[in-house]
Each structure stands twice: as C-alpha cells, then as structure tokens.
C-alpha cells in the first residue's frame, strides 16, 4: 500500500500497528539468507497525478506515495499496481543506500493490482539478489514473513504472520474483479504494499491490501495470480483476465434438480443467463446444466476441487489467459454434450471499475459537456456517490447487464453539466441527463454524438434526453461563433478526448 493514496484511507487506521515485527524472527534461517532477502527488497517512491473526471481537460494535483517492491529475474521489480499507478515519476531505493534510481512502469495490471518496474540504469542491480517463487499456495496455518518499508523509513521491516484464510476477495484497487487472496494475521501498513511475502526464502505472495474494520488482517496476492500476470505479459502486453460471462444458479434445491432433470448421482449448476459480449455467449445457452469445467466435476453449489481444496468453478478461468479455451460438459435438452469456449475479453463499454492511466473521454460543444457514464464519473458526485447520484444514472450503472440495458445503450452518454455561456443561457442548469438523440440520430457512443453534431447541416442542434425532459435546442451559427470563446474563458485546452 502506498502512502498518500487517499482512495484507500482504510490503511491509515492501521498505521504503526506492528512495529514490533521489526526484529527479524529466527526461524532457523542463517544470517546470510536474511541478507540475501534484504538485498532483493526495494523501496519505491511514486509521484502520481490523476485526471479530473469533473473537468476532464484538466489534471488534479500531484500526490506522492510510497511502497515496496521485490527484485525478480530479468532485472525486474515486482510490486503492486496501486504503488505505481497514474505515475509521473518513480524512484527506487535500496535499503540503507539513500541513492534513488529512476524507475519506469513496464507492465501494470490494475485488475489484479500487480506491476513490473524496470530501471533506466542497470547498475542498480549490481549488489542485489533475486528472489524466486514458490509455486504452491501455502498451507492454512503456516508461517509467512512480510518484508517492506511500512510508513517509509530507511530500514526494512519484517513482520511474521500466519496464513489464516484462502478466499476470493474484491481487489479494491480497481474494484473490478474478485480474485484469490491469502489472508494473514499480520497487519500490512501503508508502505508495505507491493512487498514480498515469503516462506522458506521464496515468494508466496505480494502484500497489497488490508481489511478495514478488522485489525491485524492483511491481504496477500497469491502465487496463482502473480503467475497469471507474469504469464500474460510474456508476449509484451498485458491483456487481463478473460470474461466468461455465465450467470449460474446453484442446484442445491432438490426440487430444482428434479425440475431440470439432473440425472441421479450427477451434480452441477444451471446457466441462468449469459452476459452480452462475454466469452460464453452463443456457446452456452440459458438453461444448460453445467456438469464440469475442464474435467473438474462441479458441485451443486458451484464449486470444484483443485489439489484437494474447494474453489468456485471460475477458478479454472482465473488461471487461463485470453485466447485459451475451457471445456464444459453440459446437459442440454437431456443430451450430455461438450462445449469448447474460447476465452476473450469483453468490449467493456460501461466502466464500472476504478480507472487508472486513462484519459477521461469527453466532448464539449457550446459549453455543453458530454461524458460517458462510468464509475469515475459517478465519483465526481462528492461524498457518498452511491447515495447521492441521480437514480437514473445509478440504475443504468448497476443494472446495465442484469436488465440488459447494454443492448439499448452500449455506452450511456451524459450531458454531465453546462459551462454557462450566452449560447446556452436557458440550459445552464442542466446536468446528469442521459442523451438519447442528437439531431435525430440515436446516440450509442461518444463518437456517435460527435458525428451527430458535426455532420449536422440544419440551423439548430436538437438534443433529446432519456425521460420526460424537454429537448435542448441551440442555434448552430451561435454555437460556432461562441464555441472558441467558451473554451478560452473556461481554459479548456481542447474540446474533446475520444479514445480510438
């Protein structure tokens, strides 16, 4: 966890909780082994700057953060994504050295909170060591050591913890995905983030987040997630996790099993819905009974066994890459068949997660600011956005897939607010309206909107909204005349950013 990251303020509650762990525990390792580990653990300083989703042509103020990283093979430093996200400048320091080296982000994976840093000056690695991975998930109850630079400081801190739980949890950095985590009973403090968690001198995880209400509970990214990341970037690009897109219903209820005619002695789950644009749509059908995934029999509660441990069936997909396949044995219409599902990523049109390294998209015309609905946009409703935002926006946001709104509105384009000017003086109070049509053209994306304005030849721009609102009508000539002046008055450097 980097210091100064105000999104995850939960961390500060845990500040300095386990300073006593500074003494390196003697667990039968030699001094040399400890030294070897210490010279593989580095301190990371990051200067970051986030764009403003409220005034998307501007950046917010700089902020600084600190974290920990570990040197792995190939002169690379592995750390947590949130330690180095939205970075403008990174410095890497070895313990006790005091000499900062310039680092750059080579790969960053916000959905699993991991990143690889490379150094511009390879001489940094001259007196360092490399740590290797243990590819087994540590056993429950086993001891691990957390290395890092909590709360800054020049000297390494080592904390001892016990693996208390292995479970799926939301990775709060992007709040996008649930992945496996190791829970340990050692507190992970700001600055610990990105630091290695070791067992027998080998990396079993990366410390990354804490649980807010409980004390002395830290979350660690396990080896399966780290390996998935390192495997993904082998081709020089991070693709992320594939999206399977099957909504399942359990078959715990005996009557439901009878209803779907599950044969005696078999177990599985029912595919109740397929999410648009995800891998399985068109291959798996609603009502299919899924019996197994890649040969692992699925229980009526939707779990499978891997190495004697119970996991949700999605764990098989968790360990695969975009482009891989999964094989399902299913029952469809009484017939048992096999289905191959090639794994892909969806088009991600409504961004329901926290975004980083991204330039917010927008279009500004005649003072009217248009932006796509996204989590980052909703967060511009100050305070508790989940309570305060407009009910229409929250509904479209939350039920986009559940109520198949994605089919009507692949992108939800908003008139987010109006920069008051003469040309829009009767509309300057409008905000947070969902744009339906512009000049008679149905708007399904921000680029639709731009072309509906720019290809229009009539004397008026007519913007129609979702719901019982009157249209907004602007005089095309007046907009042309005043547009540049509005940009200048509000110091808007450019009138749009639209991602290709």
């Amino acid at each position, binding site marked *: 966890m980097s210091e100064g990251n105000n999104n995850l303020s939960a961390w500060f509650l845990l500040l300095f909780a386990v300073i006593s762990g500074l003494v390196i525990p003697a667990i039968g390792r030699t001094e040399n082994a400890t030294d070897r580990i210490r010279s593989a653990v580095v301190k990371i300083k990051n200067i970051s700057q986030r764009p403003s989703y409220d005034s998307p042509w501007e950046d917010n103020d700089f902020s600084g953060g600190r974290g920990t990283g570990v040197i792995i093979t190939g002169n690379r430093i592995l750390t947590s994504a949130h330690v180095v996200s939205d970075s403008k400048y990174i410095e890497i320091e070895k313990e006790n050295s005091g000499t900062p080296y310039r680092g750059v982000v080579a790969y960053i994976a916000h959905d699993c909170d991991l990143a690889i840093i490379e150094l511009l000056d390879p001489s940094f690695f001259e007196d360092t060591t490399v740590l290797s991975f243990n590819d087994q998930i540590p056993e429950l109850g086993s001891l691990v050591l957390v290395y890092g630079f909590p709360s800054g400081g020049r000297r390494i801190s080592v904390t001892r913890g016990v693996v208390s739980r292995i479970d799926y949890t939301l990775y709060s950095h992007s709040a996008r995905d649930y992945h496996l985590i190791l829970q340990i009973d050692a507190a992970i403090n700001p600055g610990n983030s990105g630091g290695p968690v070791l067992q027998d001198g080998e990396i079993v995880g990366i410390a990354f987040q804490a649980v807010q209400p409980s004390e002395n509970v830290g979350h660690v990214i396990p080896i399966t997630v780290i390996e998935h990341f390192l495997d993904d970037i082998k081709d020089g690009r991070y693709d992320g996790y594939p999206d399977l897109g099957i*909504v399942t*219903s*359990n*078959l*715990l*209820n*005996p*009557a*439901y099993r*009878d*209803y779907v005619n599950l044969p005696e002695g078999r177990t599985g789950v029912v595919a*109740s*819905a397929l999410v648009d644009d995800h891998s399985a749509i068109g291959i798996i059908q*609603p009502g299919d009974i899924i019996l197994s995934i890649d040969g692992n029999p699925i229980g*009526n509660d939707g779990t499978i066994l891997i190495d004697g441990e119970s996991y949700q069936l999605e764990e098989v997909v968790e360990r695969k890459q975009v482009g891989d396949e999964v094989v399902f044995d299913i029952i469809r219409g009484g017939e048992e068949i096999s289905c191959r599902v090639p794994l892909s990523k969806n088009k991600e049109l409504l961004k329901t997660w926290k975004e980083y390294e991204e330039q917010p998209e927008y279009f500004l015309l005649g003072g009217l600011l248009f932006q796509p609905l996204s989590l980052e946009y909703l967060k511009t409703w100050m305070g*508790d956005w989940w*309570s*305060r935002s407009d*009910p*229409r926006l*929250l*509904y479209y946001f*939350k*039920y986009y*897939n*559940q*109520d198949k709104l994605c089919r009507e509105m692949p992108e939800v384009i908003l008139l987010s607010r109006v920069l008051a000017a003469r040309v829009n003086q*009767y*509309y300057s109070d409008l905000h947070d309206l969902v744009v339906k049509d512009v000049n008679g053209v149905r708007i399904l994306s921000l680029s639709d909107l731009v072309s509906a304005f720019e290809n229009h030849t009539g004397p*008026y721009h*007519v913007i129609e909204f979702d*719901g*019982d*609102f*009157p*249209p907004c*009508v*602007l*005089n095309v000539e*007046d907009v042309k005349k005043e547009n540049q002046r509005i940009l200048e008055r509000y110091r808007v450097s450019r009138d749009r950013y639209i991602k290709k």
Partner: protein
Amino acid sequence: MKEQVKQKVDLTPIFLVLGVFLMAGSVLGGGASDQVENGPVRIEVTYQENNYSSPWKQKKAGSRSGYGCVLSSKRILTTADIVKDSTMIKLEKPGGKKFYPGRIEVIDYDVDLAVVSVEDESFFDGLTSVEIDQRIRIDQPVKFMVMENSNKIRGIPGEIVKISVENYFLGPDKYLTYGAAVNFEDRGGGWSEPVFSGDKLIGLTMLYSGKKQYATIIPASIINRFLAADRPGGYIGFPHHGFIGAGVRDPVFREYLQLPPDGGGLYISSIYPGGSADGVLQEGDVLFSVDGFPIDVDGYYTDPDWGSIEYRDLFTRFHSPGEEIEVEIFRGGKQLKKKIKLARLDRSNYLIPPYSSGEPLEYLIVGGLIFQELTADYLKDWGEKWQTKANKKYLYYYTYHSRRPEPGRNRIIILNKILPDRINLGYQGMSDLVLAEVNGLPISKIGDVKEALKHPEKDFYRFTFEEFDQELVLPIDSLPEADRRIGEQYGISRMSR
C-alpha cells in the same frame, strides 16, 4: 419534494389532562358560547400502518389528534392525514364531556381531505355548521381555530401571504394552496386547524413550519370541489391534466418550434398514457390557453383576483372529471382548438402507488417466498434515508416512472425476501427482485400470481425474475406442508391477502 414536515408535537399530555377533566365532570359548556359556535371539533385517532417489510404484520399502533368542522350535511370535514390508517376515530365537541365514535365517509389522499360521519346524531346538538367562503386576498387577516387544554376555543391570528399552486402533503400532485404567516407557539400546528375569516371557513391547515412560522392551507375552493365530488354514485375525485409541461422562454427554442417570439406557451414534453391529454395532445405541442386563459412562458395564467397562478390550477379548481375543457395549442406552425375530456389520475393509475390505500396490504407467501406490490411505502421502510438507501432499481422506477403504467403492466410485483425453510434451500440469498413470470405467465399485479399458480408446469411452480432472468422452482406436492411449517415457524396466520 416535501420540505415542510408536520411539526411533531407530542399531544399525549393534552389527552391526559383532558381525561382528568372529564372524570372530574367539569362543566365548560358555557365557555364556548361567546366564541364562534361553528368552531372546531376535536378528532382523536388511533392508527396502525401496514408493515411493508413483513406484510402479514402491522406496525405498532399510534395515536394522533386534529380538528374538524361541522358541515351542513351533519358530517365532519377534516384532513386525510389526520384520519388515514385509522383503527378508531373519536370525536369530541367543544366543552364536551363525551367521545362520539366516527367513521370515514370519503377520503382523498391527493387533496388531503376527508369527511367523517358520526352515528350518534346528538353529537350535532348545539353545533352549527360552517359556511365556506372562497373569497380571499393577500394580506387578509384570518384566525386559526384551536382548542385549548381547558377545552376553550381560541382563534390564533394569522395573515394570508401567498396564493399559489404547491405540493400537497400525502400525494405527489400540486393544487392551489394559501400560505399564511402564523405563530402556533408551543402547540405546534398543521393538525387540520380550521381557518376562518370573520365567521366563514376559508380553509383547513395542512402543514405548519414552526421555524418559518408559516402554515400551508387547503383553500375553500378545493374543499368545495372535494365535497361536490362526493356524488350519489360515489366519489369522483379531482381531474388531472395528464401531461408534463415545460416553459418556453428560450428564444432559440421558440424559433425552432416556429412560435411567435412574443407570447407564452407551455411545451408538452410528455403525455400520461390513459390520462386526460392522451389522444388529444401530443409531445411537442405547445399549450397556449386553457379555458380561455392564456398561459405564459413559465406555465402561469393570470387569475383576475390573485395574479399569476400555475396552469394546473385551471384543470383542478374549476372542473370535475368527465367535464370537457377547451384548450388552444400550437402544433406544426398552426394554432388549433382542442377539447380535452378530463380524467382522474388516482392511485390505480400508478405503477408505484405513492401512498397507501388505507386497506390491508396485499401479499402472497408461497414456499417462504414473499411477493407483494412495489409501493412508495415499501421503499420508505428502508428507513429515514430511504431515498438514498433503497434498492437502486426501485428508486429509479419510483423517481421516473411511478405514474407511468406500462402497457400490460399495472404494478411491479417484487420478491421481498425469502423466509428460510428447507423447501427453499439454495434460493435463500435472493431478495428484492422484480417478478417477471410465474409458470411462464406474465405478472403485473398480485392477482396474476394467484392466477398463475393455478397453472403449474407439471409438478412445479416456476418463478422467473427480471434481473439476469434468474428463476426458481418449488415442488407442488410438498408445498402445503412447507407453508404450514413456515406459518408456524414465523408466526404467520395468513399466507396471502
């Protein structure tokens, strides 16, 4: 919307004092004679509201007290918010020594008015009925009639400061109101205190804000129309204009609509299906006049006595449902005359009813699954911050579609929650989902669920929900036993109502 809230004043001590007086047999009869004899009677109400999260239960009973006045028809006029959800109504005369049981004859939640009858005619002995006067002007001094603890009638002086169309207390609609500057001091107010000018009733108090020392009054004209709507064939209610309008100040918008640059008009941005304007007006029309009164760019007409008043008043104050009203509209560059036949828009026209009907809640429990209508009261059971805490889909429908019955859909039927039992094993996490189908039949009211249960799919009932098309299935043969078990376990005497 409703910023003003009834000032909450605990009235119990008053009752206690009163009780002592009654038992002591104090005679106060003469005391009231020098006051207006048509002054208020006291109404004491015990009420009990439905419990929306556990619909087979009722909430804790409460009591409230307010005022009423005697009508020439030997009935009592009061506000609906005093008598709603009542389990018992007691009336008391000024200086009275006795309670008289009362019963709601007519209630209209939209205009917040009710008529209460008294079986015992002797109640009216010595009471004269009020005369209702619609005339009023700004700055007019008025008196708010209250009964002191000593059962003496007192007139609290106030002054009319505003005549305008505003939100009413219970329903979502706006009607004419009077605003008055008045100080009820430590009594609190808004409990249907009759308002008099001289010896004539000019309105009933609907709301009072102690902070602003401001009362909102239901005016005589709305009271008269309410009383006139109580026809021998039944209560016919108030008409609703049946559209959503927006002002047309913007000269560019006027130009685009080809409207003359000067002049008024109200842009029709939406029409309620089945409402008064349906089939006559169209989205995009501009309303120029109603009943010959021109409408200005902000949607106001000019009342000869009171000046600018919002256009809605022309529909509600001067007409009954069923009557025709002449409007001038502007459509496609032309000015047209149209006749609108006025229709009522009441609770039955809502996708999500804004207030309780006063009847016990309809629900159905099958295999532990609790089904009921989505109503504003259900949302309010999320607690004080329900407008931000409740289910986001419900809030969206409530905010933007609550009075828009969709074709083929009267109400939204929801799965409230599931009472855990072995018959619903595996489903127990499901709650607050919108029921789309039962056994493949579409559902748009609670009766549809009961009907669909008569058509099982082989040996099963199948329930399908909107969200992700989730479904769940219950076995018919073990249901009676399960329902009996659930009833016993959770103390539910009736599985449906």
